[in-house]
């Protein structure tokens, strides 16, 4: 009798404890949950044996034959200042003709911001390519802990370069956080050699224009829609500083600034890495 009682008590205790542990494991705080791995968007870089002369147009007829790739953007929050709003997505296309590589970025922007002046900022977009083997998450911005090559197109620069319009000012203010409190740093304007700045960076605050500017670009705004095309030779002039597209299967990331929202510097919308697949 006693033996049965002992077995029963032991059994009840073990089962109760087991149930408690099971319940705890299922509902415990901090328990790892299965997270769906987000697939990176893949941007097909087709081979099209055609050339775009940016002095004439941006090759809309060629771009219409290529399927777009939608890329989601998020707030840049790694470094201050943070943007106050976000451009939710862009569509991108790309192709090469074995001589040059072309990128096409299209996004919605209700305002056409092309002038720089006090409290007025330019629309812009950029593509970032990692250099080297160790590739950090793109959201860490500007290649932190890893070198990147950035092509940044600015609408104000585009206007100065392509329309040969003189800037309304011959200086602009460079912006350092917290710029609302500190003095602005006047920087003299340089005559742009292109609508696109070919830059290299290794961490936040180190963005540097390259001595040799290799990238051309042009953008058009119509009915709340920006379309910007980048063009660069596939061959690199400086392997340390130029994004290389050989061998294929590369990564890139995108960023967009909306001037009417006061976006400049760190205030931008950015994407994670997009995989480039060459054909």
């Amino acid at each position, binding site marked *: 009798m*006693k*033996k049965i009682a*002992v077995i029963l*008590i*032991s059994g009840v*205790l*073990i089962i109760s*404890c087991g149930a*408690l*542990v099971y319940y*705890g*494991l299922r*509902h*415990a*705080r*901090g*328990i*790892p949950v299965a997270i769906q791995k987000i697939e990176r968007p893949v941007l097909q870089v087709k081979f099209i044996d055609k050339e775009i002369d940016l002095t004439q147009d941006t090759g809309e007829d060629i771009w219409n034959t290529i399927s777009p790739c939608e890329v989601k953007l998020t707030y840049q929050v*790694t*470094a201050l200042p943070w943007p106050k709003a976000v451009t939710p997505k862009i569509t991108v296309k790309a192709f090469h003709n074995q001589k040059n590589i072309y990128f096409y970025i299209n996004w919605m922007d209700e305002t056409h911001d092309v002038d720089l002046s006090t409290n007025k900022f330019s629309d812009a977009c950029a593509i970032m390519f990692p250099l080297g083997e160790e590739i950090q998450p793109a959201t*860490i*911005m500007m290649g*932190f*802990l890893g070198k990147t090559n950035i092509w940044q197109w600015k609408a104000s620069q585009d206007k100065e370069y392509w329309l040969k319009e003189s800037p309304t000012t011959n200086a602009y203010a460079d912006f350092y956080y917290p710029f609302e409190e500190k003095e602005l740093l006047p920087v003299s304007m340089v005559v742009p050699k292109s609508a696109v700045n070919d830059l290299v960076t290794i*961490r*936040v605050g180190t963005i540097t224009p390259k001595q040799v500017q290799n990238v051309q670009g042009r953008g058009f705004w119509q009915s709340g829609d920006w379309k910007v095309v980048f063009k660069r030779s596939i061959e690199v002039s400086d392997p340390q500083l130029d994004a290389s597209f050989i061998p294929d299967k590369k990564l890139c990331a995108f960023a967009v600034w909306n001037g009417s929202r006061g976006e400049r510097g760190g205030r931008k919308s950015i994407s994670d890495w997009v995989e480039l697949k060459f054909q």
Partner: protein
Amino acid sequence: MLILIFVPSSFAQEQFFQIKAKKFSYTPNIIKVNKGDVVRFRLVSEDVHHGLFLDGYGISTSAYPGQEGALKFVADKTGRFSFRCSHTCGEFHPYMVGYLYVSPNYLFWAGTFIILLLGFGSFIITMSKTQKKEGLKLFGIIPLNWQLELTRFKLIRNLLKSRWFPLIPIIINLFIFTVILFAGFVGGWGSGNYNFGVMIVWILWWVLLMLFMVPLIGRFWCMICPFPLLGEWIQRGKLIAVGRQKSWGLSKKWPNKWKNLWPLVILFWITTWFSGFFTVRPFATFILLGAIILLAIIASIIYEKRTFCITMCPVSGFMGLYSNFSLCSVRRKDPEICRKHIPKTCVVGNEKGYGCPWMELPFDMNRNTYCGLCLECFKACPYDNMGFFVSPFGRHLFVERRKTDDIYNRRSTDEAFKGLTMLGIFLSFFLAFQGPYGHLKDMVRATSLSGYLSYIGESFCIDFLLIPVVFLLFTFLSWKVSKNKEVKFKEVFVNFAYILVPVGLAIWAAFSIGIILPNGSYLLHIVSDPFAWGWNLFGTANFPWTPVFTGIMPYIQVLLVVIGLMFALDFGGKFSQQTYASMDEAKKSWIPILIYLVGLHIFFLKLFTG
């Protein structure tokens, strides 16, 4: 004309280090500079928000991913300083540590000098002895047979005889452990440094155990432990008054073959396999403590009395062994009274108290290993012949286990191995938890199965092979040098193993200092918000992490190591004289052990400061 050119021994330099922080280690994890160097750190995080606090200098910085932290200081203090994470970054955050060495390391060399001096002193003293002295004296000053009996004080006598003591402290502990279990349950897999269960058990309780409870009062924790309480209530059928003398349940006897410390040697070692979980994850602490309580209850209804405590509680083994070093003990006062007293109610019980639940023979007890300080013998003795004695440290190590019945044997290899494995476990714990080695931390918390199995394998090799074999070699040498073939080698091995009791206590105390001083401030947070529900019961929930006395921490650790050595040297000489008939043999036999102790303590010094 002579031109004297002074060449300074070292030039102060500016040294820059980029330190990458990633759960749970730094790269580089060990940095060496010279005194006077201007040191710059750039801290970079590779995953989450990490900090860097430099012990001894009291400076800190932190880095979010994508940003960096900077420190600049002059290395004007020498020695080894840990730099540790100052922002909770995950479960192993309290153990995310790197080492900065500022040469020259005066503390290490001074400590080494002191150890060598003590060893040399012990050698001289031993060699100068010509005959064995009758009475043993601690450090040649305090007679080991001196003792103060505390029940002469009426208040203490009444307290020890009352059925409410130690029941009241046990019930208070039961409440505390209920909160601990609940906190562990709701804490889940969160970081343990903000959990009541993890902090109270593995920071507060463990430190109090090793620093105060065991060295001073021996099995004091066993006296107030709540784990066997429920089982005992079932056995006895009464909460406070005396009920059944014979335990309810199956009352089976534990097999004679296993009535020693071997099951506990193995069980404690197995428990340490999971140290990378239960010391940092609240739910793992819940599982461990819950399992122990469950085992205690089930064991109490299957086996007689406190079989669980003697043979199954993971911490009982080292507490029992180390309690022989402590100041306190329970013994009979007048042997003549006990000789005439039949039946011996301290064994069989009466209406005032239960027969010894630990199945000791209180009237004849001469060691502390299996006495749980439950104080039932005080209540059961009609002649007030049980006494609570305070005596010099280590007194009870020098008495041999008597063959009082078929339960307890002579001094034996089980206790020897317990002392040895405690050293090994300390080494594994220190390297994994207080060392700068990220790969060990990954192994102990099982980031990969192969790493985890490697950790268990390495732990086995250290605990059961390396440390015992090294000790075996020195004791073998000791035996050979004595040239006494009549004394068995096993006796030499076992007898000398007891010098590891004060050694073990000292290094575990030093280890505990390394836990409580940097991390004790978390206790203030968890008492106000025990379940991380946003409470602020005592207004300390927002108390920031504040390491204290980290500058003098290495000095305290060195002091403890030196104290442990002093006791070991003193005891070892005495064990040698107990083992060998002639003084000459005892002296010769002591030399290899002396060398072993000096080398061992220089190694410990290297761990803590070098």
